[in-house]
């Protein structure tokens, strides 16, 4: 098996926030913490595009690189997880992450920085699988239940794909071929350039 990956198809995302709701409900994430959120570019302008963003479980994760207490680890499936018993809540990972994935729970009027919380790819954490301790610290362990992340499985337009990187890439490649979009797809020009030099 390849590595577990997320990908969001910007041609399909309709900014319904179903993925955000599914995640919060599945893991009973506290108020103020959003493991996943939908970002809309050019909001309100015709042609606006939305993408669902969470931890991308980077192969060379900057959060892992900067953590002073080394609380991160990577599973065999390429999922980046962390140990909340080791985390000191310093926030370095938050500064390092290009996606803003690390979240910090706040309580009280002015907020208190606690242990970091982030998307686990629904793979729980370093506690007994399916245990109460795992759920309270990290949320449900759907991968160990033979399921894919709730956000992707709940996505109404199947914009958000999750799973084995090879399978996800095949699905997206097939879509691009079927809908006949190649170089004109949103983001292509930014990544690969266009004939007139404009970004798309």
């Amino acid at each position, binding site marked *: *098996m390849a590595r577990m990956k997320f990908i969001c198809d910007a041609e399909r995302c309709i900014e319904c926030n179903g993925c955000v709701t599914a995640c919060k409900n599945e893991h009973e994430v506290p108020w103020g913490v959003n493991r996943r959120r939908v970002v809309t570019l050019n909001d309100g302008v015709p042609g606006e595009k939305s993408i669902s963003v969470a931890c991308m479980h980077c192969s060379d994760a900057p959060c892992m690189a900067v953590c002073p207490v080394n609380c991160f680890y990577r599973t065999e499936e390429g999922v980046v997880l962390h140990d909340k018993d080791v985390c*000191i809540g310093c926030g370095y990972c938050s500064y390092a992450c290009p996606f803003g994935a690390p979240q910090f729970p706040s309580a009280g009027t002015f907020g208190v920085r606690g242990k970091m919380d982030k998307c686990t790819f629904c793979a729980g954490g370093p506690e*007994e699988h399916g245990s109460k301790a795992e759920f309270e610290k990290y949320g449900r362990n759907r991968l160990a239940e*033979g399921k894919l992340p709730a956000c992707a499985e709940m996505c109404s337009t199947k914009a958000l794909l999750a799973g084995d990187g090879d399978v996800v890439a095949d699905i997206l490649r097939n879509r691009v071929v079927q809908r006949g979009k190649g170089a004109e797809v949103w983001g292509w020009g930014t990544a690969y350039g266009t004939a007139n030099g404009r970004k798309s």
Partner: protein
Amino acid sequence: MKPIRGLSTVAILLAAFAVAACGETPQDASAAGVKVDRPVYQGVGDSPFVAPGWKAGDRTSWQAELKARAQYGQNDYTRMTP
């Protein structure tokens, strides 16, 4: 007599000070290290939420289940007739 008692008291205090650090708990934040996490294909045990169609502990069947689930649940082109 008195100087000997004073010396022995000092010696005991010095010895106690010398070994005092031995009783301290490690303060290195990563001393305990990250707890070992079991592979996800080991399953969650007896739970009504476990998806049917695979065997806990069997990595191949778990991988096949997730691949099938990804295709069936996310690839709508495989569910349409052209």
